[in-house]
């Protein structure tokens, strides 16, 4: 899964100087982030609250009205996203650019069956109707390895497990075959064997269609193994870009690596990052 994509292509996504602020807070949730992505897989890791989801939602223009977004450049396949009006964005969302959200059950409609919701995605993006839409939905649910697809399609979001919810979300997104998929913690509720398959499925899509994937996750080992490049975020900034873990230089990234529990080296308490030192470094920069 670590084969780098060598062929240089025009970037799918170009972002420069992205800033996001919530409310009138002086603190920037995202602070001067630059990202460039060609066909392939870009990972974003970083601690909780560092702004990873905010970057994803800013690209999709799905932030709440309280958020202010500024960017020097924000382009999807050459189109200036900043100039697009809400109608244009609605067309783009789902079709060209899809976001798999961190909280699957929250983003599914609680009062509609799973089957109806996935079939609606097939209707919306593939123009399929009735039986044909349901068949496409069933096929996609099967691809994300939902078992007993026919009965699961009749269930409501509260009746499925956490991991099933995540896969349903993924199925809904993949149906449209978008150019850019932003997957925000797409596998955090999945067990390891299903996780590998879901990642392979995402990877397949990316390769088949030459599209791009942004994988947001706190699982730094998984992201580094899966992505061509990894952006490490800390307090709203990208502190370094790495191709593999051995390159990690920033003390924050090194701190992340040493905080991982290691079964072959049991300890009573885990190593936690030295926040004081990080704050000092920040004050200096």
């Amino acid at each position, binding site marked *: 899964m670590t084969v780098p994509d060598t062929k240089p292509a025009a970037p799918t996504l170009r972002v420069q100087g992205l800033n996001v602020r919530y409310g009138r807070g002086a603190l920037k949730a995202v602070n001067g982030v630059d990202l460039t992505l060609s066909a392939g897989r870009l990972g974003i890791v970083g601690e*909780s609250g560092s702004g990873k989801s905010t970057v994803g939602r800013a690209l999709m223009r799905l932030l709440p009205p309280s958020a202010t977004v500024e960017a020097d450049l924000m382009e999807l396949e050459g189109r200036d996203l900043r100039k697009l009006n809400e109608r244009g964005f609605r067309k783009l969302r789902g079709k060209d650019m899809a976001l798999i959200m961190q909280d699957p059950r*929250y983003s599914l409609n609680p009062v509609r069956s799973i089957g109806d919701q996935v079939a609606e995605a097939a209707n919306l993006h593939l123009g399929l109707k009735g039986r044909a839409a349901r068949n496409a939905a069933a096929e996609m649910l099967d691809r994300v390895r939902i078992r007993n697809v026919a009965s699961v399609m009749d269930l409501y979001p509260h009746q499925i497990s*956490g991991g099933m919810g995540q896969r349903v979300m993924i199925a809904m997104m993949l149906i449209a075959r978008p150019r850019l998929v932003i997957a925000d913690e797409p596998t955090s509720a999945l067990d390891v064997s299903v996780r590998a398959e879901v990642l392979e499925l995402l990877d397949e899509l990316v390769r088949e269609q030459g599209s791009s994937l942004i994988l947001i996750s*706190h699982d730094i080992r998984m992201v580094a193994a899966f992505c061509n490049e990894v952006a490490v975020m800390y307090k709203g900034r990208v502190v370094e870009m790495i191709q593999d873990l051995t390159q990690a230089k920033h003390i924050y990234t090194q701190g992340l690596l040493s905080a*991982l*529990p290691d079964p072959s080296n049991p300890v009573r308490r885990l190593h*936690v990052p030295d926040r004081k030192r990080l704050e000092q470094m920040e004050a200096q920069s």
Partner: protein
Amino acid sequence: MSTKNHAIEVRGLDVVYGEGEHRNHVVRALDFDVRRGETLGIVGESGCGKSTVLRCLTGLERGWSGEIRVEGSPVSHRRTQEELRRLQLVFQDPFASLHPRHRIRRAITEPLRCMGLAVRPGQVEDALEQVGLPGSFAERFPHELSGGQRQRVAIARALVLNPPILLLDEPTSALDVSVQAEVLNLLSDKKDAEALTYVMVSHDLSVIAHMCDRILVMKDGRFVDEFAPEAIAARRATDPYAQHLIDASFV
């Protein structure tokens, strides 16, 4: 049953959802004990019934049959307040467990108010700081927090009643590794100080190996294997499914 050393005893636990062609036998005649002061891990593939078992233990799931004892006393489908207090659950999905229109202060004090207990001044701030969040987050709404911050609120809320038994459903799956380390250390320290009993469900076998004294492997509603954390390090299990889980964890 020799009950005094057991925080939880379960015999013949069964859960069936749906009827006819939709009948889904999710939990199948489970027998297990959790010793006092132990951390028991439960692992198994998505949909195998782990969260359902935890929901039966806390009393959230009413449609079970079998026998459940908590600290020696049998519990029924309807729980007394004291029975509810003793077992607190940290939910897998922090969004589902926090009311979107209630401030964090209200979320954290809710269990106290349900039990008719008074809220001490500063208690909410202390509870937040204990899980590494600033006390000022008390005035925020859930959507104003990141995923990991919400999960820490959920843990703070579960701890506010000082329960002797804590059920943790994927408590760190929404957290980055540094906060995960902080939360796991917090749970270990709490346990050392107060001899708590934990039941922990996680997909992350490194987390399970780090936290648990004993690990049960669940498949299709049954336990198929049991091992010690050392087996994960040695990557050796007896059941082939358990072996598959271990192998898949270390790609």
